[in-house]
């Protein structure tokens, strides 16, 4: 493995490996079927190098497993952010980064020629003008440098006012410490916190899924398309069988589950004339297409549909457009009032009615009651009856309940 490099050129390949190790963490070398053993060894070595403290090795009969042991209760930052800090670069890149930015720290406005000259005079660093120009232009695109034209003369400078302002505002530094853990694009907040040397020692975040950070490049591309109201082509890889496929849709909104750990793109598919959700971890690439002429109208339509959405499905098992579910619950008064609170808090707009002492009814109408089953099961022990216009849902619930009685040997006479 003499050609081993700790840093990598592109993110997508790495993303898949990290996700597999993070989510599963029980696959041995032989079980990564799609990859060559050498690729596996290199990726594994990189992962161990980047995430050292969180990598756990277990010896099993057919080899050794490596997995990521991440307990979110103990995290001051998302350990997977380190994966974003692995981009490779050239020797010129790193030297020019520090020297050009240092040269311009005092607010001076210099031409490329002046910068090149100063690099030699002040830092004994010899670069040709073209190389310096390319770097200055690239940094202007990233927003690190300002570029101004005076006639034919182009000058570059730095504006450090925002960095200085943040440094002097503890509240802003605290906000960055918080949002890097709790919000979208936490990796960007983390970059800022690191640049300003203000690590998070104050906040912990529950029900935030570290693995989401691996999807941010996809979300970034989707948001760009959404802002421009453009359709997109998605290349996807099925999480079930690895099959590749492509689809085209109008991207409308990112749907996030705070429970299941999945995020989705909700888009409108013209071909089928339906709203559809795609799991973000299955999306490999996003290609922007033409502008959608009906973007605002579709957004409004999605908004109207939202009250009938339980999760991410716009269509149930049967042909009914909408299905009604009624669940009657036993909640002893007053000691089990928290159950009634749960129905209101978690019931996503469903109505909760007190039928009689200790008995409450929850009722809702949604596209796909099948999606409600996991939530309904959390009330096992209190469900007096469950009725649904989608009979499959009723059947599935009671069948699963019977299976559980058998699994845990819950006798009839108790």
């Amino acid at each position: 493995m003499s050609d081993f490099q700790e840093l990598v050129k592109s993110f997508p390949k790495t993303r898949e490996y990290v996700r597999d190790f993070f989510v599963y963490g029980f696959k041995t070398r032989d079980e990564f079927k799609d990859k060559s053993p050498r690729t596996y060894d290199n990726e594994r070595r990189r992962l161990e190098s980047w995430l050292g403290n969180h990598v756990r090795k277990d010896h099993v009969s057919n080899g050794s497993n490596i997995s990521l042991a991440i307990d979110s209760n103990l995290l001051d930052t998302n350990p997977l952010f380190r994966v974003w800090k692995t981009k490779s670069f050239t020797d010129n890149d790193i030297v020019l980064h520090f020297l050009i930015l240092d040269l311009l720290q005092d607010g001076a406005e210099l031409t490329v020629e002046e910068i090149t000259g100063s690099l030699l005079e002040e830092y004994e660093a010899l670069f040709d003008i073209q190389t310096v120009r390319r770097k200055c232009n690239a940094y202007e695109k990233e927003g690190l440098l300002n570029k101004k034209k005076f006639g034919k003369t182009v000058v570059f400078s730095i504006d450090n006012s925002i960095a200085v302002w943040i440094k002097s505002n503890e509240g802003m530094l605290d906000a960055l410490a918080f949002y890097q853990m709790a919000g979208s694009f936490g990796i960007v907040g983390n970059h800022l916190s690191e640049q300003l040397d203000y690590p998070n020692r104050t906040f912990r975040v529950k029900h935030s899924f570290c693995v989401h950070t691996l999807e941010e490049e996809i979300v970034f591309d989707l948001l760009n398309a959404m802002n421009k109201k453009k359709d997109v082509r998605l290349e996807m890889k099925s999480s079930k069988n690895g099959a590749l496929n492509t689809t085209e849709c109008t991207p409308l909104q990112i749907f996030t589950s705070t429970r299941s750990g999945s995020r989705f793109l909700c888009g409108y598919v013209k071909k089928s004339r339906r709203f559809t959700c795609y799991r973000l971890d299955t999306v490999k690439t996003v290609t922007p297409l033409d502008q959608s002429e009906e973007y605002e109208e579709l957004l409004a339509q999605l908004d109207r549909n939202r009250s009938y959405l339980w999760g991410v499905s716009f269509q149930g098992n049967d042909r009914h457009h909408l299905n009604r579910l009624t669940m009657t619950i036993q909640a002893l008064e007053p000691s089990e009032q928290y159950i009634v609170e749960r129905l209101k808090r978690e019931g996503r707009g469903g109505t909760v009615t007190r039928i009689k002492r200790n008995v409450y009814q929850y009722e809702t109408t949604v596209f796909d009651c099948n999606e409600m089953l996991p939530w309904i099961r959390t009330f096992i022990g209190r469900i007096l009856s469950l009725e649904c216009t989608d009979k499959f849902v009723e059947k599935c619930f009671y069948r699963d309940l019977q299976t559980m009685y058998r699994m845990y040997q819950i006798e009839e006479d108790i």
Partner: protein
Amino acid sequence: MELFSEIYSCYYQVLRHLLCSQDTLTIQDIRRLICSEGFEESLLSIIPKLEDGTWNLFEKDGKLYRSRLSSSFTTPVSDLEKSYLKALLSDPRIGLFLDQEQLEALDKMLAGVAPLWKPEQFYYFDRFADGDSFEDEKYRNIFRTLLQAQKQNRYVDIDYTSPNGSRVHHHYVPARLEYSVKNDKFRILALKPSHSAFAQGSQHEAQASERMKLEILNVSRIQDIKLMSKTLSSPVDLDTMIQRSYYKEPLRLRIVNKRNALERAMLHFANYEKNTTKIDEDTYECLIYYNQSMETELLIEVMSFGPMLTVIENERFLNNLKARLKRQRRIAPPAEL
């Protein structure tokens, strides 16, 4: 704007710290910093480049390295970062951290910058409906007092309404402010001295810290808060306290990979410390570590999977699950279903 760019790379951060050092450095100092901040194998890549001068960023004086950079070196905020900051301005929680004047100042500096996202572009479909009132002035004041106390290790005097409605009054040191994405609420992980330890006063605080108890309080249930001058002088190892609170016997689940159960379970329980092993072609076993405060939530999560997961151990968890099933069978026997 690129999300995956070398300007945010770990190597650049390590180098910045080395270069902003006011002192001359020995190669051992450099190694030490790379080991503590870099990746495990970064040393092998960075040291040769510095030693042979390929990265000509230090002046070498014999065996000493002196940075060529000015001491005031600051990395400018990139467009991506500006765009991120602009998006934060639309978040209802930003008012917990910045007052109106600060918000306006930041907004002015970011004039013309497009936000990286807009709140309406994200939809949290299973978030609970009773999130905290982040825009309420009383809530903000309580939050800021907690934040100050946490950073200064100071005690706070808290008047609190417990979930059962009773009013309690205690002294705590906020160890961390915890935000739940699902509940959209802040809690505090609060250290509460045992009564005897607190009564003995600060001279015995070192011993007292060992007798601290960890409690979780909802910020929205705090009725009144006063910042005290007393501080916690000896540090408390919060992570060890949390780990010690875990049951010795983890939850042991068996997962049969049908209906995509394995992937769903692995994602669902990704937040817990867990260890999964393959038993045979379609069967997996997963150990999940948890403590008493997570018990009910974990039980509910396991129940949501129905028969796709089987609880094998521990006894306590299994009994709780069986009790719910027994109650279910009792209140709605299968014949009536």
